[in-house]
């Protein structure tokens, strides 16, 4: 029976190639096994991103010569695989194809949980494929485990645990980057050792200061380290510092670890045109006031309108003037949520027009078409309709779709002190 076991050399090479993943590889070996040993109908691999699920599985399958089909359902989802009816057909076709095959076959479904039209029935059906066809094993790769995803009794799970600090550094140590010395001499063993020393120290510092807080994944961590390495070792390359006085080098670059610029590119996902909105539109004069009025209508409670906007009652403004606008924290029991944090509230159009009339510094010129400007603001998506009713309906509600910073900028450009009117 010993001959049928997986060669130990294979496991050793795998472990060398992928450090810190020994238990996972061993479990995979036990479950996938060889052609002679049975495999369970379904296996679930789960772990957060960049823990090596796909890579390890792929390498493993290749090295044991298992026959497998990989499908990334993340993108396919919308199409044929999304309809559970086709799962039936898939099963029929697979069993037809595999009926003459002696060897075990594996169907690898990568990132199934990102399928767009995934219903629980679809997953359950996919999970049952393995039970329907005896020689088929379905392998699911998930990032977030969902209990009862397959709604079948307990398929074996392999957890790819996130790497710890030591493990991450160990992995990164496989890709030590050179220090770009200016006086290039012979590259000796000693140099490599020195580089490794600096590299590991540096990785540790980056981890503690930046990556631990924001970018745990090895890929993100590596991207940050890559970006910061060159400027960091510049003094060494120029010969100002030796490789061994790391702490003084750290002090020199202390600022670098405080800044977030390196992290932002890596961590923050590129929003769909979200950045573009922050640039200020060049709006007409009245539109700017309209927008301010809309903001006030959205964020001020309606019952305080009298306080803020009655011309003969200056009480509200006086009281507000000079007050701070920054959000003040009160730690009372069951404290109220700051209105600005709650997001914009809906308001009827009349209220917007009333506030608009109140905040205009002078009489409105008769040629200005306010309704058109409101329509323009809506088409710019600075104002959005909040109720489902028709636009022309009297009860239609609106809300502002711009942030405080944007509004403040707009208000300043028309010399309107919006701070005085915002209810705290």
């Amino acid at each position, binding site marked *: *029976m*010993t001959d049928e*076991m997986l060669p130990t050399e294979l496991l050793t090479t795998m472990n060398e190639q992928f450090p810190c993943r020994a*238990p996972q590889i061993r*479990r995979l070996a*036990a*479950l996938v*096994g060889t052609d002679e040993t049975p495999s*369970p109908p379904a296996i*679930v691999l789960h*772990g*957060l991103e960049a*823990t090596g699920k796909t890579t390890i599985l792929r390498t493993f399958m290749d090295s044991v010569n298992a026959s497998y089909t990989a499908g990334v359902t993340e993108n396919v989802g919308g199409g044929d695989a999304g309809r*559970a*009816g086709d799962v*039936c057909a898939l099963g*029929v076709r697979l069993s037809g194809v595999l009926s003459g095959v002696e060897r075990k076959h594996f169907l690898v479904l990568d990132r199934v949980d990102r399928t767009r039209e995934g219903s629980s*029935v679809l997953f*359950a059906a996919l999970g049952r494929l393995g039970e329907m066809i005896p020689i088929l094993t379905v392998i699911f790769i998930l*990032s*977030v*485990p969902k*209990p009862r995803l397959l709604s079948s*009794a*307990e*398929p*074996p*799970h*392999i*957890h790819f*645990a*996130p790497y710890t600090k030591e493990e991450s550094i160990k992995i990164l140590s496989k890709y030590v980057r050179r220090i770009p010395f200016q006086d290039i001499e012979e590259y000796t063993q000693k140099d490599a050792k020195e580089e490794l020393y600096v590299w590991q120290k540096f990785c540790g510092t980056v981890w503690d*200061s930046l*990556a*631990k*807080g*924001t*970018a*745990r994944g090895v890929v993100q961590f590596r991207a940050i380290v890559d970006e910061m390495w060159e400027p960091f070792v510049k003094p060494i390359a120029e010969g100002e510092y030796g490789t061994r006085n790391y702490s003084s080098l750290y002090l020199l670059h202390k600022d670098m*670890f405080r800044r*977030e610029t390196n*992290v932002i590119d890596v*961590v*923050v*996902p590129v929003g769909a045109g979200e950045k573009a*909105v922050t640039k200020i539109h060049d709006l007409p004069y009245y539109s700017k006031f309209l927008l301010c009025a809309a903001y006030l209508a959205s964020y001020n409670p309606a019952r305080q309108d009298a306080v803020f906007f009655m011309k003969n009652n200056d009480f509200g403004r006086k009281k507000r003037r000079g007050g701070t606008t920054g959000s003040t*924290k009160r*730690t009372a029991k*069951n404290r*109220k*949520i700051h209105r*600005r*944090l709650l*997001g914009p509230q809906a308001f009827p159009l009349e209220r917007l027009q009333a506030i608009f009339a109140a905040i205009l510094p002078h009489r409105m010129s008769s040629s200005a078409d306010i309704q058109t400007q409101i329509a323009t603001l809506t088409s710019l*998506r600075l104002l959005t*309709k*909040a109720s489902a009713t028709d636009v022309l309906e009297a009860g239609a509600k609106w*809300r502002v*779709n711009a*942030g405080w910073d944007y509004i403040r900028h707009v208000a300043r450009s028309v010399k309107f002190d919006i701070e005085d009117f915002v209810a705290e």
Partner: protein
Amino acid sequence: MLIIGARGTGKTTLLESAISDLTEEHKGEFLTVRLNGFFQTDDKIALREIWRQLGVEMELDERDQPKTTNFADTLSSILAILSHPDELRAPDGEGEELAEEDPSSTTTTLSVIFILEEFDLFATHPRQTLLYNLFDIAQSRKAPIAAIGTTTRIDVVESLEKRVKSRFSHRTVHLKNPPTLKGFWEICKGGLSVDMDEVDAEINGSSDEDRRCFEAWNTHIENLYKSDKQFQRHLRRIYAQNKDPKSFFNSCILPLSDSVTSFPMGPSFSLSANQLDEPDSILSILDGLTDLELTLLIAAARLDIISDTDTCNFQMAYSEYTALTSPLKVASSAAGVTAGRLWSKEVALGAWERLAEYELLVPAVIGGGSGGGVSREGRMWRVEVGLAEIGKCLEMGRAGIGRAGLGKWCKEV
């Protein structure tokens, strides 16, 4: 009839073994059609599948497939074929008449067993046409068929429509998990140990050495149950948690695959931790979250309690996060540690959206999509985990090393 029982109680196994027994006794006298509620998600697909399976077994031509007319016609034409392969194109009325003849007189008549797994899903199909027709035919003896459903839902009969229910035989068999630990062990032992009779039957020239080997294995298994404290505790835990033999067998895969090499020596496997276990809940991923993500999650979970709402948006969570972190920052910057670092809003928003990706936050607006036209920061979310749960995780050290300091935020509100 219906077989009702929890997952892993052996409904399908029972059915399959009964059918294989039947096959031995009455070979060629009946056909089996296997349907599964997960695969055949509506009646049309189910019918096509029935046709396909029958077609495979009876080696019918593709061209015999009836034109897609209405459902009952198709089904009855299928059954007409079953009853009388000689008169394939018999009109409906005639088919009925003929089927009423004594089945034993026509030797070509085949019985059909319909197996409907996940029966409750068939009951969700619109108007339950398939079930109605199957039951109707089964009851009126138009054709010799039997429909057997397996399900986990105990109240499945209630979900049947009235007309379907009245045609249902109301024969149900309930399968239960073993009521005692001993019974559970009997099942598990049955899976683990080697059946000596089977060995004799399969390996003709089984040598004495082999036999001794297998016997040693069996006694070893028995000993494990009797004397090994760790093994007993493991067994009892699974019994208490889900009574599912499958999860026990799962936990045995690894030790077994390791012990194979030392097989004749009497393997010893310790089932210390079930490494192939399904994670208990979504909380298990807290370990992999970054500090910022975890803090934001705690902040959001705190808001649930503090402001007495169950939804919150990024703005609220971020302001709570700032409130939490700022006093810490003063303290830690003195000590020279960067632990409670206050991250900027962009980075935090990235982390926030990652939390949503992990489904620790679920959108509170139904039909979210664009989130009702609100910006990313204002979108409302609901936190999936409770503050107490996070606190417990942190306390037990399951959420990563050196995070215990965050635990106090979970307690002091």
